[in-house]
C-alpha cells in the first residue's frame, strides 16, 4: 500500500473561482504540471481544466445496488419456498409483487452505504485523519493552485512557476512542506 512522502509545494492563492480556472488553463498551456487545487466549494469544470479523469464512483454505486437487489430477491425467495414455505390461503409462495418493496429498499440501502464507504475510503476521509493544511483560508474564501517542487527542480523552473502564478492573478504566493500519501490502485481507479 501507500506510504507518506514529504513534498514541497509552491502555491498561489486566488480570490475568485473564475480567475483560478483561467490560471489552471494557462499553467497547463505553459506545460506546467499542477500538483492540486484546493477550493472552498466545487468549481464546475475545474476537474476537466486540470485534466483529472472522471470518477467511477457511480459505476461502483450501480454494482452495490445490484448486489442489494440480488440479495433481497434470492433471500426472500429462498425463505418463502425452501426454508419456511407457509400456505397462506393457497396463494403462491413465490409472490414477486410482494417482494418488490423490500427489494427496492435493499437496493437503495446497499448502493448508498457502499458508495459512501467507498467515497470515504478513496478520499481518505475518516475520524482522526489530519492532513497537512497549506492555508486554512482555502476552505473559506481562497482558491489554491499548487505545484510540487523538489531538489531536482531547477531555479529556472521555479521562477517559471512563480511567474505564471503572478501573471494569472494570484494574490499570495508561498511555499510549504507537507506530508502526503500516494494513491494506491483502488484510489486511482475511482
Amino acid at each position: 500500500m501507500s506510504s507518506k512522502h514529504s513534498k514541497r509545494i509552491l502555491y498561489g492563492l486566488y480570490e475568485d473561482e473564475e480567475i483560478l480556472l483561467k490560471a489552471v488553463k494557462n499553467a497547463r498551456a505553459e506545460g506546467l504540471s499542477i500538483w492540486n487545487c484546493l477550493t472552498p466549494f466545487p468549481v464546475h469544470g475545474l476537474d476537466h481544466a486540470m485534466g483529472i479523469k472522471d470518477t467511477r464512483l457511480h459505476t461502483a454505486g450501480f454494482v452495490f445496488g445490484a448486489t442489494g437487489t440480488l440479495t433481497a430477491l434470492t433471500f426472500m425467495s429462498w425463505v418463502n419456498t425452501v426454508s419456511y414455505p407457509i400456505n397462506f390461503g393457497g396463494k403462491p409462495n413465490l409472490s414477486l409483487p410482494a417482494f418488490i418493496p423490500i427489494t427496492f429498499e435493499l437496493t437503495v440501502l446497499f448502493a448508498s452505504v457502499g458508495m459512501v464507504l467507498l467515497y470515504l475510503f478513496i478520499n481518505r476521509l475518516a475520524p482522526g485523519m489530519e492532513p497537512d493544511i497549506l492555508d486554512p483560508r482555502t476552505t473559506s474564501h481562497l482558491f489554491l493552485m499548487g505545484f510540487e517542487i523538489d531538489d531536482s527542480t531547477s531555479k529556472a523552473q521555479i521562477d517559471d512557476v512563480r511567474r505564471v502564478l503572478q501573471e494569472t492573478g494570484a494574490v499570495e504566493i508561498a511555499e510549504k512542506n507537507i506530508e502526503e500519501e500516494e494513491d494506491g490502485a483502488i484510489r486511482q481507479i475511482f
Partner: protein
Amino acid sequence: MGHAFVSPIREPLITGRKTYKQITDDICGPVEGPPTKSWLAAISFTAVVALIGFATIGYSIMYGIGTYGLDRTVGWGWDITNFVWWVGIGHAGTLISAILLLFRQKWRTGVNRSAEAMTIFAVMCAGMFPLIHMGRIWLMFFVFPYPNSRGPLWVNFNSPLLWDVFAISTYFTVSLLFWYAGLIPDLATVRDRVTGKWQKKLYSIFSFGWRGSAKEWQRFESLSLILAGLAAPLVLSVHTIVSFDFATSVIPGWHTTIFPPYFVAGAIFSGFAMVLTLMLVARKLLKLEDYITIAHIESMNKVIVLTGSIVGVAYITELFMSWYSGSPYEGYAFRNRVSGPYWWAYWAMMTCNVISPQFFWVQSLRRNVIFTFILSIFINIGMWFERFVIIVISLHRDMLPSAWSYYVPTWVEVTIFIGTLGFFMTCFLLFVKVAPVVAVAEVKSILKTSGDQYITQSPEQVEAEINKLAQSSGHYESLIKPQYDDE
C-alpha cells in the same frame, strides 16, 4: 470579472452583496461563539420536556401498554398517529435535498442542511412509537430476519408492516449518510477557523480530514448526485409503504388505492410546514435573513399550496368514492367521519389542511413571514388530525356495534408525544449550535448566479448582457433578430 447571465426575473437568493468571506463569517459565526442565554434557556426547557417524555416511556415499558387508552376495538391510537405524523414530517428534508437537487432548484441550498437534520430527528421520533407500541420492546430484534433458534422461522415478507421496518430503517440510514456527506466540507470550514484547542480537535475529528481538493470535490458531486437519485424514489416509497399498512387491510376507510399518493403528498405538506415553523425562528435568531430570503419562503409556500390542494382533492375523492362505490360499509365509515362522535377531529383536519393553505394563492400572504409562521402551525396540527382521523375514526366503530367505543388517550400517551416534541427540539437546537445551519459550500456555489449583486437589474444592463452573450457565442444575428423561414 465575468459571470453567467441570469434573467432579471429571477429573484436573488443571497442578499446583502455578500463575498465568499462574508458567507463563511455569517454562517460559521454562531457556531464558534459561546452559546447565548436564549439558546441555553431554550435547550434547558426542551431537554426537560424530553426527559419527562423518556421517563414516561420507561413507565409505559414497565407497566405495559395497558397504561394507554387503547381497547379491543381501537388498537391503534395516539402512538401510531404520532408515528405516521413524525414520518411525514421527516419527508421534507430529503425531498428538498434530493428531488430539488435533481430539478436543479437553487433555493434548495439555503434550507437543505437544516431540513435534512430535521428529517433525521423526526425519523428518530417516529421510530420510537412502533417500538414502544410493541409492548415488549426487549424483543424488538424479532422484526429483523436473522438466523434464530426458533427453527427455520422467518419474518413475513408479504406483510406491509415488515416492509415498513425496511423502509424506515433504510430511509433513516440513507438520510443520515446524505446529510453527513454534505456536512463534512462545512465542518472542515469550521475546523480551519476555530481557535480553541478542544474545538479544533473536535471539528478535526468530525470533518474527517477534508481538504477540498479538485478530486475530492469531483467525487463529492458524483456522490451527491447519485445519492439524490437514490433518495428521490426512496422518499416516495417510504410513505407509500406506510400507507400500505392501512391500505392492504380490509377496514372500511383504510382499504383504498388512493392512499399511497395521498400519503406522500400529505407527508411533503406537513414536512414543509415543519421546516417553515423551525426555519422562520432560526433565521431570525441566527440572523440568516440574507440566506433564507423571502424568495425561499415563497418557494416553500408554493409547494405547500400544491401539496395541500392534492391532499384536499384526496379527501374529497375519498368522500365521493364512499358514495359511488355503493358499499354500505364504506358509506357508513365516511358518514361517521363527517358527523359521528369524532366530527370535531374531521373538521379540524378539513379546516387546517384544505382551507388554510388556499390563502397561499395570494402572493402577499406567501411572502408574509408572520402569516406563514401561523399557517405552518395550523398545518402541523391539521396533519396530526389527518392521521388521527384515519386511524381512530375508522377503528372505533367496527363491524360489531356492541364493541363500539370512544377512545380517549391517557396521560401516558399525551406525555410521550409531548416528550418526542421536546426531544426533536433538543436535537435541533444542538444541531444549530454545533454545525453550520446553512450549507456553506453549496451557498457559495450559487453566489455567482443568485447573489443580488450579480443579478442584472436595469433594462440597459440586460440588453448589454444579451449582446455580450450573443457575440461570444457567435449567434449574434439570430438572437437579436429572430429569423423565420420564408413560406
